């Protein structure tokens, strides 16, 4: 699905590398990915959306294990996908890594990590971004 669409994915580097979302200046709701305006405050929020870097900590709301890979993900199966609720509020769809399939649980605390997401074959661009791993307890 990337198929050489380099600018399209370059634009999203701040989101994929550093979880940059934004916050409505009127109601303080936080969005990821960032939005032009707040769906609830609408006109009042235009020009008032503030960039915000999310911490990358959250919990697993649900998950699945993919056995039939889509294009660009062949050879990686089985892999875990999950919906994570970030501590700041927004939810993301992502892969879970560094975790055995038998150990993945709803409610698990996770943190973001930097991985290769996909690439345009052997000659195309490589796209990096976030995946999540079980939180390292200190």
């Amino acid at each position, binding site marked *: 699905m990337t198929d050489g669409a380099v600018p399209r994915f370059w634009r999203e580097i701040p989101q994929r590398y550093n979880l940059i979302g934004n916050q409505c200046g009127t109601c303080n709701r936080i969005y990821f*990915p960032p939005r032009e305006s707040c769906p609830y405050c609408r006109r009042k929020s235009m020009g008032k959306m503030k960039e915000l870097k999310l911490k990358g900590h959250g919990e697993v709301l649900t*998950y*699945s294990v*993919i*056995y039939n890979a889509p294009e660009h*993900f062949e050879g990686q199966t089985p892999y875990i996908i999950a919906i994570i609720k970030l501590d700041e509020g927004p939810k993301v*769809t992502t*892969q879970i890594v560094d975790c055995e399939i038998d150990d993945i649980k*709803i409610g698990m605390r996770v943190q973001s990590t930097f991985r290769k*997401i996909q690439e345009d074959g052997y000659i195309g661009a490589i796209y990096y971004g976030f995946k999540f791993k079980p939180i390292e307890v200190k």
Partner: protein
Amino acid sequence: MLIIQPMLSIGIFYMRTDKMMRDVAIIGIGVTKFGELWDKSFRNLIAEAGSKALFDSGISGKELDALYVGSMSTGRFVGQEHVGALVADWSGFAHMHIPAIRVESACASGGLAVRQGYFSVASGMNDVVVVGGVEKMTDVVGDEATDTLATGLDQEWEAFFGATFPGLYAMIATRHMYEYGTTREQLAKIAVKNHANGALNPYAQFKRAIPLEKVLNSPMTAYPLGMLDCSPVSDGAAAVVLCAADKAKNYTDKPVKILGTGQASDTLSLHGRRDICTFDSTVYAGKKAYEQAKIKPDDVDVAEVHDCFTIAEIIAIEDLGFVKKGEGGKAIDEKITTLDGKIPVNPSGGLKAKGHPVGATGVAQIAEIVMQLRGEAGDRQVKDAKIGLAHNVGAVGASCVVHILEAI
């Protein structure tokens, strides 16, 4: 706030309906077989369904004011856009120069095409229209069909990271199992029921019942969904002819009225939803349809719901109000939705056994309900079916179209 806004909009819709709209009836239907139809092209399929519908309706074609066609992804499946014009031409209407409209809403393209056709007649703009739905999915090789279906997901924030169509529905299943105790057995029973129904349907892609163990042991696609929890890749087409209800008897003695229609949208991504286990798009589309039809869920005698995956049927019967939220699994255990159950669901075999040529499905569901209400459903006939409901969902619930029909 979230509760007041939709209720206000339903109220406004209700007032408008009373003022502007006239009743619309379905006067003819046509469906092709669904399956891997190597000998039939996209053009063959829609022409076959369309001509069957015209024949069934008794119109010659000269009466048509417009043509609507629902198809999800003709560009990727058959390299063709500008499909409204193509279908009008290939159906033999090019020389009539009627308006032709192609409608898209992922897997709800067919249902939405019917709704658009309905509005054009209800508003008085058109008197007679034909609405078709078609998808030709087997001309592409290997995984291309699955990857094309995935264009209905959020490309930037779901598909890009490796989420697949079955994977997203699987995540709904995992959460449903966690919150409500739904089991893999209950999911599998949905497949068993629908294959048993499909065995009675001459148009179905799969005409054999399958035992529970086979579903449970099918290869894993995306945990907890196995291969037999998933609807197939299919070719097929269906068409219906709509006309103003007060003129229907000029053409047929078995017209079926569209009592109500509803449509709703929601966030494109599953992760953006209010509740992972609920399709609010189904809830709101259903509510609008029930309001217009002036009926309650209990009044529905037969329903065709969007079971692209077994879990989808479970949440559909909850979201349409047939059972309480969380009790979709219990419903299949208690056989509420079998052919002789309290509310038979997917007598045709559903998407699971009948097949799921994406753009055709929404129209085919309506054709099935028409057959049921006319008493023409053969071995899979639901007794005394007077009011039927068709429920068509786009991708992972970002859009939904519901129609309620009644024999008149």
